[in-house]
């Protein structure tokens, strides 16, 4: 244990904190850290592989004798499988194995019921069609409101109803809060079901190297979680399962667990005694691989005329299909003195929801920040000022200043919807949050750094890179610590034979790995300095390494280049394994961000165009400014897509999804992209030695709300339901004019 004084906080307002560090912990980055590689704009390390087509995704793995798998899905939203006859399929050309799902009770249209492996994908698909399934269709319900009604068809027989309510929460005195309010707004906000729509669909290649030895190339967000799941599912020792994810085409939360259809492919490989390749098609991806649940948030909130929220009440419900987890982050962002909340999951006969980039947050914050806007306008207060009066987060407060300047906040309409003609422009604001400084405590995470006698350096951790840039930040952090150019290192990730890495969920990859990389690199560097010091007639602690040169700090004439220094190792490489330390008390744990959106609304056609978005986002230490900005920009574009376009549409009479494609399930394209200004807000937060917080999720949380608020500022139309489509805008306009909607 050692104590160290750190300068933490935000520019202009740094404060000194004494923190206690575990033994061997590198001195945490703080405001005084002079970093050369970390924080630079470094192109991602795997860019070359990706632009040349050399990057191999799970879809791309080709093994000798590999078979291709296809899945058969149930067309009914609710049915019992009375019989399933695979004999015809088994005798079809090329077919090598057939398996049926264990669950013979199908609860959503698209659920997997059987799988076939054959010499070619076409043969497997044809054989799937030859499987004879006799279904007993059962009553079903896919509509959220219908499913809540007493007497609605039950999704699970063993439950009293489809509604599973969470315990209500209450703090403060709500009645007093409303009594103290000068203004009260009651409103209901609704959000839709969004699917992850990763460009790479779910898939894997399973190869049984021996009857008790399994190797899987998987498109997964958690190599080790996949390994452990496979080991459990197939009753193997974890040491006999290897999972590899060198590259993956997006996950966004949908690739965190092992799915039944993925197990099926592994089972097919075992049955056939040959490797099996599974890549689900786009339709299956939409139906069965997860989604962001929808929500209805019935709200009432009050504030004083000087802008303090006094009472906040929300009753929310939503459906995660046959899954749970439809809760929303409402309230969030702000602290209110009196809050009452109820929430409920409503089961429907639809594909299960699963974590999706900031679970519960974009939908919750859409309601929270819309309500904040409504209150601000109701008392006639500047919406930013109103938010700042209710905000206690120092980073967010500073971010508002930057954001207002960047968007030109003073250009907003003083009177929403004012002005002649059909085209109206306006500006809206919303705040985002994410309550995670990563893995507070995960001593499973380890990083290995090896320095070889020939000067080569390897940095190893088995975690995967979803496209966020994990590989790159690992390289930058190690390079910084060792004093080498990034290009001199070999970064090895995405393989369970490397030290344990975290699953990428909750924006925890960077905060989980970054401190551990530093620690391992520091240990390795110390070892090398111990070997080199005598040759430079110095003590190890007198040495430093910069740009590949080891130098005695007090006597710069005494120097040795990296390669020669490593030569002193003789035949024994340095091999250091570091374990993730627990977080310590830093300065600020929660990531904050604000977004300003400028839109143009055509009130005659209902068309909304997002013209500009300004993002100010904190993530603690910015590890790679270039890739961090990319992630923030991408989050905004996903947020726009959610706000204006995306909607999983189930036909109510048949329970079947009518848009299971990328034609009618609309994700934002090149034209939908506005000008985006991404400002990374530099804060020294402490908490871990790299001072790093997660970045994947926070910037996607406020975008839809900022856009909806901008539509209000532009057109005077309060859009309380997502997506904000032309017909919803036209209906709102008609309602305002008192006409038919």
């Amino acid at each position, binding site marked *: 244990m050692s104590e160290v004084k750190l300068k933490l906080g935000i520019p202009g307002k740094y404060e000194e904190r004494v923190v206690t560090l575990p033994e061997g912990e590198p001195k945490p980055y703080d405001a005084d850290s002079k970093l050369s590689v970390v924080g630079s704009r470094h192109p991602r390390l795997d860019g070359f592989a990706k632009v040349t087509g050399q990057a191999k995704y799970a879809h791309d793995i080709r093994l000798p004798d590999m078979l291709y798998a296809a899945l058969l899905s149930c067309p009914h939203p609710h049915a019992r499988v009375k019989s399933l006859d695979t004999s015809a399929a088994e005798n079809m050309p090329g077919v090598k194995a057939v398996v049926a799902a264990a669950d013979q009770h199908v609860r959503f249209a698209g659920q997997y019921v059987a799988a076939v492996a054959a010499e070619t994908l076409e043969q497997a698909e044809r054989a799937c069609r030859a499987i004879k399934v006799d279904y007993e269709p059962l009553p079903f319900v896919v509509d959220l409101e219908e499913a809540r009604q007493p007497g609605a068809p039950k999704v699970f027989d063993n439950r009293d109803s489809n509604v599973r309510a969470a315990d209500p929460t209450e703090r403060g005195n709500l009645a007093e809060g409303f009594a103290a309010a000068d203004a009260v707004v009651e409103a209901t906000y609704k959000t839709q079901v969004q699917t992850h729509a990763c460009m790479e669909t779910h898939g894997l290649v399973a190869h049984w190297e021996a009857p008790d030895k399994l190797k899987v190339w998987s498109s997964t967000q958690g190599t080790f979680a996949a390994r452990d799941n496979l080991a459990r599912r197939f009753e193997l020792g974890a040491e006999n399962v290897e999972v590899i994810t060198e590259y993956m085409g997006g996950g966004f939360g949908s690739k965190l667990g092992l799915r039944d259809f993925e197990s099926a492919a592994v089972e097919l490989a075992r049955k056939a005694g040959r490797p099996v390749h599974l890549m689900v098609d786009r339709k299956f991806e939409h139906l069965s691989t997860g989604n962001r649940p929808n929500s209805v948030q019935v709200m009432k909130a009050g504030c004083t005329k000087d802008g303090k929220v006094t009472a906040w009440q929300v009753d929310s419900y939503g459906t995660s299909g046959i899954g749970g987890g439809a809760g929303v982050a409402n309230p969030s962002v702000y602290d209110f003195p009196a809050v009452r909340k109820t929430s409920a999951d409503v089961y429907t006969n639809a594909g299960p929801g699963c974590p999706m980039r900031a679970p519960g947050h974009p939908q919750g914050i859409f309601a929270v920040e819309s309500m904040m806007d409504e209150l601000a306008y109701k008392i006639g207060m500047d919406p930013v000022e109103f938010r700042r009066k209710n905000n206690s987060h120092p980073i967010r407060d500073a971010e508002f200043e930057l954001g207002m300047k960047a968007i030109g906040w003073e250009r907003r309409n003083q009177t929403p919807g004012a002005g002649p003609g059909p085209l109206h422009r306006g500006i809206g604001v919303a705040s985002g949050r994410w309550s995670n400084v990563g893995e507070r405590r995960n001593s499973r995470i380890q990083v290995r750094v090896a320095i070889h006698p020939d000067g080569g350096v390897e940095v190893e951790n088995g975690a995967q890179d979803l496209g966020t840039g994990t590989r790159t930040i690992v390289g930058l952090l190690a390079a910084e610590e060792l004093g080498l150019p990034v290009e001199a290192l070999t970064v090895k990730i995405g393989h369970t034979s490397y030290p344990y890495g975290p699953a990428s969920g909750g924006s925890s990859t960077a905060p989980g790995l970054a401190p551990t990389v530093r620690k391992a690199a520091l240990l390795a560097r110390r070892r090398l300095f111990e070997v080199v010091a005598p040759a430079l007639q110095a003590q190890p602690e007198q040495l430093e390494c910069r740009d590949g040169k080891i130098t005695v700090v007090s006597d710069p004439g005494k120097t040795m280049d990296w390669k020669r220094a490593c030569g002193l190792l003789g035949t024994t490489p340095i091999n250091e394994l570091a374990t993730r330390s627990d977080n310590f008390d830093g300065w600020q744990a929660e990531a904050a961000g604000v977004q300003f959106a400028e839109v143009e609304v055509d009130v005659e*056609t209902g*068309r909304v165009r997002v013209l500009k978005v300004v993002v100010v986002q904190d993530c603690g230490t910015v590890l790679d400014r270039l890739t961090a900005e990319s992630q923030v920009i991408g989050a905004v574009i996903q947020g726009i897509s959610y706000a204006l376009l995306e909607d999983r549409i189930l036909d109510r009479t048949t329970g079947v999804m*009518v848009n299971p494609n990328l034609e*009618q399930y609309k994700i934002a*394209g090149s034209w939908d992209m506005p000008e985006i200004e991404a400002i990374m807000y530099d804060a020294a937060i402490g908490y871990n030695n790299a001072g790093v917080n997660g970045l994947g999720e926070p910037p996607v949380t406020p975008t839809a709300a900022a856009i909806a608020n901008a539509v209000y500022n532009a057109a005077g139309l309060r859009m309380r339901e997502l997506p904000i489509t032309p017909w919803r805008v036209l209906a709102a306009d008609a309602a305002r004019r008192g006409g038919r909607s």
Partner: protein
Amino acid sequence: MTTPFTYLEPAGLADASRLARQEGAMLKAGGIDLLDEMKEGLVAPEKVVRLSALKGMDRIEVKNGKLRIGALVTLATVAAHKQVREHARILAAAAGQAATPQIRNAATVGGNLCQRPRCWYYRHEDFPCRKKGGDQCFAETGENRYHAIFAADGPCHIVHPSALGTALAALGGQILVFDGQKSRSVAVEQFFALPSVDVTRENVLQPGEIIEAVEIPSAKGKKSAYHKQRERLAADWPLAEVAVVYEVKNGAADGVRLVLGHAAPIPWRCPTAESYLSGKKIDAGAAAEAARLAMAAAAPLAQNEYKVPLFTVLIARALMAAEKGEPA
């Protein structure tokens, strides 16, 4: 999934027509829509007659004041072609805004006119709708936000997807149909057919008949406009589409052709609005009244009522844009 099929290579147009009459045979030009349909399991031809090999059907020429565009000309070519832009600028605009660049590189004029509807019930193999020989229209009471607001008696509520069809109807184009022996010229309005005629088809082509070319009276010097509105800003089907062409005689509109796309199962002409505008100077008031008249007979379904105000605005805007000579 696709069932296996073989390609047939016709020696000429007559041969193609003969091959197309065989049992289980279908015609393919650019292949965009046919391959979609095969992938979706909607059709499973055993033989596919490849028109792309035919000579001379990919030409564009102007003769006797008529623009003739071969059926195998790609949308990308139509969009960029100088003579199309000169004589039928709204056709170039319609072609240039359809689908995506990759699709426009392959999709042909003939294929665009003959493409099947995008109705999500029709396109989904799990829905045995009327158009596929079933006994119900799922859109009637189902998810119908993108469906027709005209021809409410159905028995099918698709909107016709062809962008070229809308523009060609406004231009007064003719479609040259080869029946195996000779060609006949069919006015665009007569080419498309309502579901009440035959719910399983969208046009009057008989088995073995092939679109050879389209012919368009030059609209050079005429007023015209093509407007559409999509949900996503690009690479999306229109929610509403308007094409208008007219001449100006003594300062007033003459021979007005106003056609709506994505409003009905066929490109939808608006005769009441057209005759109202005839002989009038087009100004904001006249445009608004014409739009109102065009929408008077609209009978929207439960979820597509928004199309009525949307078309009303687009029609008025298209008329004003044409009058002012704004770019198509």
